[in-house]
């Protein structure tokens, strides 16, 4: 009996010492996972995920509070990349999230009253203007988050879908016939 206890105590003691020594020698710190997740997110800062920006959403994913399918601007590829990073299975978008085509905001200059409410709302400072001066959206910096539309008191901001031009045209996925399809002929009627 005693020998058993002594043996187990000895093993535990030796292992404890080894692990304690290793904990000091191989000490690491930090959790760069949040930054890695944030690097995948599209930085639209739109809040559609339910968090006030992309970094808070990344932090929530890293702590496991929320699923990875909440970001419509990231699309299916975003979910796939997050799934690969975290080593989980990709899940499709829920019924509550809907993906929209990429668009930029445009201010109707005839209606703008220069109130600066939209400038304060823009998370990437893409609107140029000052009090009582004309406001305008820098199209190249606009991420299409739509946060400026609600604050505008005269409803002069609208979203314009980015249309396909020669500069942003992409080759399409090749769709080809697997079998040649015969048009429906009298053979069907004869039956």
């Amino acid at each position, binding site marked *: 009996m005693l020998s058993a206890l002594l043996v*187990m105590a*000895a*093993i535990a003691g030796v292992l404890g010492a*080894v692990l304690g020594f290793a*904990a000091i020698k*191989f000490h690491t710190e930090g959790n760069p*996972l949040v930054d890695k997740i944030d690097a995948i997110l599209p930085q639209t800062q739109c809040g559609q995920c339910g968090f006030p920006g992309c970094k808070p959403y990344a932090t929530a994913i890293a702590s496991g509070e929320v699923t990875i399918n909440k970001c419509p601007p990231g699309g299916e590829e975003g979910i796939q990349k997050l799934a690969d990073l975290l080593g989980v299975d990709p899940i499709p978008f829920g019924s509550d999230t809907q993906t929209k085509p990429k668009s930029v905001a445009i201010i109707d200059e005839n209606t703008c009253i220069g109130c600066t409410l939209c400038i304060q709302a823009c998370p990437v400072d893409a609107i140029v203007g000052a009090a009582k001066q004309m406001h305008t959206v820098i199209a190249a910096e606009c991420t299409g988050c739509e946060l400026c539309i609600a604050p505008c008191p005269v409803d002069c901001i609208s979203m314009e879908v980015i249309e396909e031009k020669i500069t942003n045209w992409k080759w399409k996925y090749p769709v080809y016939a697997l079998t040649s399809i015969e048009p429906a002929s009298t053979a069907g009627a004869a039956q």
Partner: protein
Amino acid sequence: MTEYLLILVSAVFVNNIVMVKILGLCPFMGVSKKLEAAIGMGAATTFVLTLASGSSYLINHYLLGPELSYLTTLSFIVVIAGIVQFTEMVVQKTSPMLYQVLGIYLPLITTNCAVLGIPLLNVQAKHNFMESIFFGMGGALGFTMVLVLFAAMRERMEGADVPVIFKGSAIAMVTAGLMSLSFMGFSGLIK
């Protein structure tokens, strides 16, 4: 010399711990999605198994002896847990990337039935010290080889046109079963 070679060949091919003895399936299915992760896991398991086989033989032979043989399983588990924790710290320090990729499966090596099974098989077969080490190393090499092969096949199947109901784990199980069948063909290799 030849006995050691025979033990090695037997452990790697004829009595492959995953395919023939059906041990250690948890990391086999869980870590085989990416080839780099599989190689890392195999290396970690080899390190753990070799150390575990050696130290468990020493503990069993010198510390426990015939009177305290009922403490075998308990002391083996304690030693394996300690070694795995040590390995985890080493991996986190030397390769944080691999640590991130392996995720939860690194500490799960503790509960890997192959890692407990091989020392127990050593006890059952009454191997001496060198034989235990070779059996442990061989088993781990066999585990690594099968894990890498399976990961390569799964990566290949990522792009394949698998029917929806079979996608993911289902087709992986089918593949594993077929691999197991083919490994059974090694029986009779060593007379």
